């Protein structure tokens, strides 16, 4: 079968989610309209030195893990104990928190997929998982002990590299499941989660792999949080459950959150032949760059090209657009207007799951892809919480002579953005994610109707 004829099915999913014991609990809380954002004690203790204090964080204890601190290197997490016995100690020794989450998500996804041991360990099985940030929680105390406390390099032990390297999540998953195919990480800031899944899709589509474990991770890290806090881009001044408010006129930043989303992808005909439960079929993945030289400001033209690349000549419109929808002032408005410019003013709905759990950075695209799969399963649209009032005035950039997009204020598109979840027939969802550096990614996923 040539690459152009191969289709890609999603056959498993798993992960680690804020305030949720497992995927089923996450599903229940999402569709009951709950916010999974809390005040974060780790941020609160820093008083006036930190601007934002809300997060969709996840503690070690909440995921059945205990930290073993080094007796040699002050404050250094030497290893973790899995109190539920899911991950062998040898694998825990080479993992940071996010990598452990990736391993747990991978085990759940493989279990749901029903892959045999020989299938999992095949040369035709790959692992494509990445993180947005580095292994900050490992590196900070290791470096502090060497540079500030003048201790020998060896006091932090021999695992700072494997627990902090760029592709640590993929490497740890691969060493756990013992696949013999591709093992890599894609890094594209807040598009990382979807980027890894998109790359995995291409590996199967183009005939390079038959199965791939793919996704994104962002382990809980105050080190990561304060970087964004310093940029003044985090939400501030609202109660936790009102802090993430995509498209609302009073939004003032995103909620920095953490989590992990892992999916099992498989060549469609193989999955069907073995009777797998098909959670969704990926129609296409496309990614591009803004090309305007701007690291941060979103690009209307770049997002329109993204849609063109994803949809090609198809006239089919998605039933739901799962937007990036971070709750940042400019990001949300450019995104909504680009969606409207491409799809029109009605006939679909917009879902912004970050309104419920915040922005999981490198995990965002993967966890939100899972929310799209859950919407397909439940046949319900997840809401955009706190999207109460949309701007009745034009955005400043809409007033410029160079603006070529919609001429109406965001308020005109109120009907597209539900504040509460609701049931409707959902056959196709498009997921959008963007990242610093002007990177844009989009994936289209449909119900298996065969």
């Amino acid at each position, binding site marked *: 079968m040539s690459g152009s004829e191969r289709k890609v099915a999603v056959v498993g999913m798993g992960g680690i989610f804020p305030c949720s014991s497992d995927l089923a609990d996450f599903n229940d809380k999402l569709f009951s309209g709950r916010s999974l954002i809390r005040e974060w004690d780790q941020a609160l203790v820093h008083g006036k030195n930190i601007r934002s204090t809300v997060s969709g964080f996840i503690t070690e204890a909440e995921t059945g893990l205990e930290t073993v601190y080094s007796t040699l290197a002050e404050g250094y997490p030497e290893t973790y*104990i899995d109190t539920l016995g899911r991950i062998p100690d*040898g694998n825990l*020794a080479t993992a940071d928190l996010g990598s452990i989450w990736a391993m747990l998500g991978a085990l759940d996804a493989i279990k749901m997929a029903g892959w045999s041991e020989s299938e999992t360990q095949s040369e035709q099985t790959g692992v494509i998982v990445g993180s947005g940030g580095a292994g900050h929680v490992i590196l900070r105390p290791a470096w502090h002990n060497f540079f500030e406390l003048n201790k*020998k390099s*060896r006091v932090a032990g021999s695992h700072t590299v494997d627990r902090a390297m760029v592709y640590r999540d993929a490497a740890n998953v691969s060493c756990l499941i013992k696949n013999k195919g591709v093992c890599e990480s894609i890094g594209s800031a807040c598009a990382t989660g979807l980027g890894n899944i998109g790359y995995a899709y291409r590996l199967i589509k183009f005939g390079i792999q038959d199965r791939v474990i793919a996704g994104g991770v962002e382990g809980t890290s105050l080190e990561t949080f304060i970087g964004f806090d310093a940029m003044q881009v985090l939400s501030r001044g609202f109660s936790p459950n009102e802090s993430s408010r995509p498209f609302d006129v009073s939004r003032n930043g995103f909620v920095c959150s953490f989590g992990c989303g892992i999916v099992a992808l498989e060549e469609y005909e193989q999955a069907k032949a073995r009777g797998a439960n098909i959670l969704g079929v990926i129609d296409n993945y496309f990614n591009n760059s803004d090309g305007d030289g701007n690291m941060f400001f979103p690009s209307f033209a770049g997002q329109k090209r993204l849609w063109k690349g994803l949809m090609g000549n198809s006239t089919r419109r998605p039933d739901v657009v799962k937007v990036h929808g971070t709750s940042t002032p400019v990001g949300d408005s450019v995104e909504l207007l680009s969606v409207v410019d491409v799809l029109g003013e009605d006939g679909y709905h917009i879902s912004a799951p970050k309104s419920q759990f915040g922005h999981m950075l490198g995990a965002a695209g993967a966890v939100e892809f899972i929310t799209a799969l859950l919407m397909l399963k439940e046949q319900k649209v997840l809401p955009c919480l706190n999207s109460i009032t949309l701007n009745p005035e034009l955005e400043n950039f809409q007033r410029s002579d160079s603006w070529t997009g919609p001429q109406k204020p965001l308020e005109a598109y109120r009907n597209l953005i539900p504040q509460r979840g609701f049931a409707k027939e959902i056959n196709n969802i498009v997921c959008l994610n963007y990242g610093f550096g002007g990177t844009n990614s989009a994936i289209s996923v449909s119900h298996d109707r065969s």
Partner: protein
Amino acid sequence: MERQQIIDGLVEILKTVRTIAPEKLAGITEDTDFIADLNTPSTEMINIAAKAEQKFGVEFDDDDIDGLGSTVKDFVDLIIRAKERE
């Protein structure tokens, strides 16, 4: 310090190395090989050495560690040499 005291101290260190199965720690002698007999990952050897420095109050030279073998005897000899240098 007697050699057996050092071995006992090493066993206490090995109990904190979670990649070594606890049941393998019974009956350790100077001939026991960390890698061959205890299945210790080679990357853990430096961690054991660093913990030995702390436990026995010594500092190893990098040359000694670079040439270190993988038996308990090699570690005991290293610790005694380091103590004699003090």
